């Protein structure tokens, strides 16, 4: 099914007799690959920008619009989505980013997908065409359905249109790449930065012990801030310009993954990193610790059941992003998921979408 309007989405939902898997650009293979007994609702033809007034710091677009198209449009007006929405270079769509609830390294400073979504138009399992939120940057009216959709993987409904807040893009960026002696040194350096007033834009750790610290802002001030960063951390390699930008683009598009590796998103806190790293090193995996140690991206080339077990044993939950079809969530917290099911029973009582 390839709807070109929200009304065709309504039709498709009402007429479907098997659970629908909603697909945007198909860039997140583990989430968009269908299994038997399902039908795919493809949103790539439901695209296009509906409203963009740069002075408002907002835009509204159909859910199937590619992130790259949005980013080009914003860049022409000196604006951006400051959370590095992942997989933009691989055809990811706005709706897909929202439904998967993914944010990149830039999420550290100003928040992620959940913090920039303002409004949604969506079709529930009951076939109703609904709106939630608004088109302005501040709103406390009614239940926050836009945020509820973040990470819901199309289990509550099909988002057909989204409004996002945007920011002016920083004039310049600079990144310090610091090779530490050990993972603990890198973590200790990250801790030192956590309450420092340098307005750090991103902090990532690349095992075994490389710390990447990104600053953004006005050019002259930026070099002074980088000097202050050096005083805090010691001398690292400084990246600027295209090389600097490429580094972060590659991180958000997961260019570091080996062919055939599946990708799992694992929310963490920095305290978890030493144990998780010790558990995974030497296993069939690669790791990137992003968003100031709040997120582990695990590239896994073994049997997916094994990594599920490792996560469960570590008391962590995960979302499969790239890889073959299978259960999306691993070890998601039970009481929260039970609550989510109660919500689903209202929004999708006939089970038009995949189960939670």
């Amino acid at each position, binding site marked *: 099914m390839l709807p070109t309007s929200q009304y065709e989405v309504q039709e498709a939902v009402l007429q479907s007799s098997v659970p629908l898997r909603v697909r945007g650009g198909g860039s997140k293979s583990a989430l968009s690959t269908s299994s038997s007994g399902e039908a795919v609702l493809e949103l790539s033809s439901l695209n296009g920008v509906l409203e963009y007034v740069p002075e408002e710091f907002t835009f509204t677009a159909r859910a199937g619009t590619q992130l790259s198209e949005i980013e080009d449009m914003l860049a022409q007006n000196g604006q951006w989505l400051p959370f590095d929405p992942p997989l933009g270079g691989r055809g990811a769509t706005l709706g897909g980013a929202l439904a998967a609830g993914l944010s990149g390294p830039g999420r550290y400073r100003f928040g992620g997908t959940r913090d920039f979504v303002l409004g949604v138009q969506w079709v529930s399992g009951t076939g109703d065409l609904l709106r939630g939120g608004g*088109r302005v940057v*501040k*709103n406390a*009216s009614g*239940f926050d359905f836009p945020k509820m959709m973040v990470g819901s993987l199309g289990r509550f409904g099909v988002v057909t249109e989204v409004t996002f807040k945007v920011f002016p893009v920083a004039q310049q960026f600079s990144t310090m790449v610091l090779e530490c002696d050990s993972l603990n040194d890198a973590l200790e350096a990250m801790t030192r930065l956590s*309450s420092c007033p340098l307005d750090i834009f991103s902090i990532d750790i690349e095992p075994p012990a490389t710390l990447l610290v990104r600053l953004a802002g006005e050019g002259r*001030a930026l070099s002074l801030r980088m000097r202050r960063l050096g005083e805090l951390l010691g001398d690292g390699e400084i990246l600027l310009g295209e090389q600097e930008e490429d580094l972060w683009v590659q991180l958000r598009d997961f260019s570091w993954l080996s062919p055939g590796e599946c990708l799992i998103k694992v929310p963490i806190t920095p305290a978890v990193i030493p144990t998780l790293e010790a558990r995974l090193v030497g296993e069939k995996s690669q790791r990137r610790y992003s968003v100031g140690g709040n997120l582990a991206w695990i590239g896994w080339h073994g049997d997916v059941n094994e990594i599920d077990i490792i996560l469960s044993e570590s008391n962590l939950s995960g979302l499969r992003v790239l890889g073959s079809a299978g259960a999306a969530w691993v070890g998601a917290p039970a*009481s929260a998921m039970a*609550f989510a099911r109660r919500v689903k029973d209202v929004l999708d009582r006939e089970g038009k979408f995949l189960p939670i």
Partner: protein
Amino acid sequence: MAARRFLSDLAAIFPSDRLLTERAQLIPYESDALTAFRALPRAVVLPESQDEVIETVQLCYRASIPFVARGSGTSLSGGALPDEDGVVIALNRLNRIIRVDAEHRLAVVEAGVSNLAVSKAAAPYGLYYVPDPSSQSICTIGGNVAFNSGGAHCLKYGMTSNHVLGIKVVLPHGDIVEMGGESLEGVGPDLVGLFVGSEGLFGIALEITLRLLPVPESYRTVLAAYSSMKDAGDTVATVVASGLLPGAIEIMDNLTIQAVEQSFDAGYPTDAAALLIVELEGEANQVEQEFVELEKIINNSAAYSVRSARDDIERSQIWKGRKGAFGALGAITQAYIVQDGVVPRTQLGAVLSEIDELSVQYGLRVANVFHAGDGNLHPNVLYDGSQEGMLERAEQLAGEITKLCVRHGGVITGEHGVGMEKRDYMREMFAEVDLEMMQRLSRAIDPRGIANVGKMFPGQGVPGV
């Protein structure tokens, strides 16, 4: 009989000094900061532990008795208005700061902790809790969570919702659910996002994990006076178009300035038609560079007087008047209604002149003080409640203003919530089918209809009025 039984069950949980049932004891709880609505509850309980809250909710569920959670009662939308048949669960004593984890930049607090207390507890670590509603010295985090409170920094930093990582909730039937956690990221539907701003209809937040950020190293605050509101509005547009991202952009109109100067000595020029406050904050070098740009913009604007704060004392002098504006209005009018609509920033000028016209038409003064950066208006309709029919006229005008905001592409409330006050305007913003879905969800989570019932949705009985 059932009622007597319920009270004796409450007495089994609470000692007599924490179970209030006498009329004189209940009166302080009959309304919140929206005093136009009043209702005496059947009882008020003052829990000191999470378990006491949970037991109370379970009891309410078994007896089908409505409950309303209350923090400091600062809601401007009547969000904490009691139910006459119900119990008020007053949470001010549930006020432990469980921990501040500087390394992970978070604080875990109970619902009754005040907003400012979180920042105070975080200050020794160079951190703070960002959302700053005007009532932050007394309003509680539980209330902030229920109504998704805002403040002056929402364009850059978002609202309460953007600073809550996890919530432990007691649902209306007494079960506990843990939403979110300690990480900035999560997997699964964003239930924290759904809960924040649900106005108590999904139950009571007991324990909240808050995101903290480093205290800005430096501030630069500028105050500019304009002889027309349009000039002030145009300057906001220029500032925003310049690529700067100020922490706060605020505007006050002449009536507000007059009121402020009567109450405090903020040193505002009383002849200004509009005063603009723009504040930059962040790393010192960055702020200095941005300030050069900001000064250029302000000096090239139509401002006839510009004042920059040179130090913290001058900065707090500039803010003193703005933060005290609502209180100051109380001194120049017998009563007023605060509105909270949001409009797209480009519509500010048009909306403000329509408000002026309405003000003339209704013969009521409207004082405008607002968050210009995010388009959140606070038109204050001034009236004299002792005059026959004036409250009704003021309410009607306030309603017109709210509808006006929606017509211009905005929303009915930016930060005060719908509560009692704006229930009937939900239809302006949402279609019947949207409201029906929200209500169905509310009924599914609260099948007995006991959790802060009567709030948010139109067309329900109005207790106590």
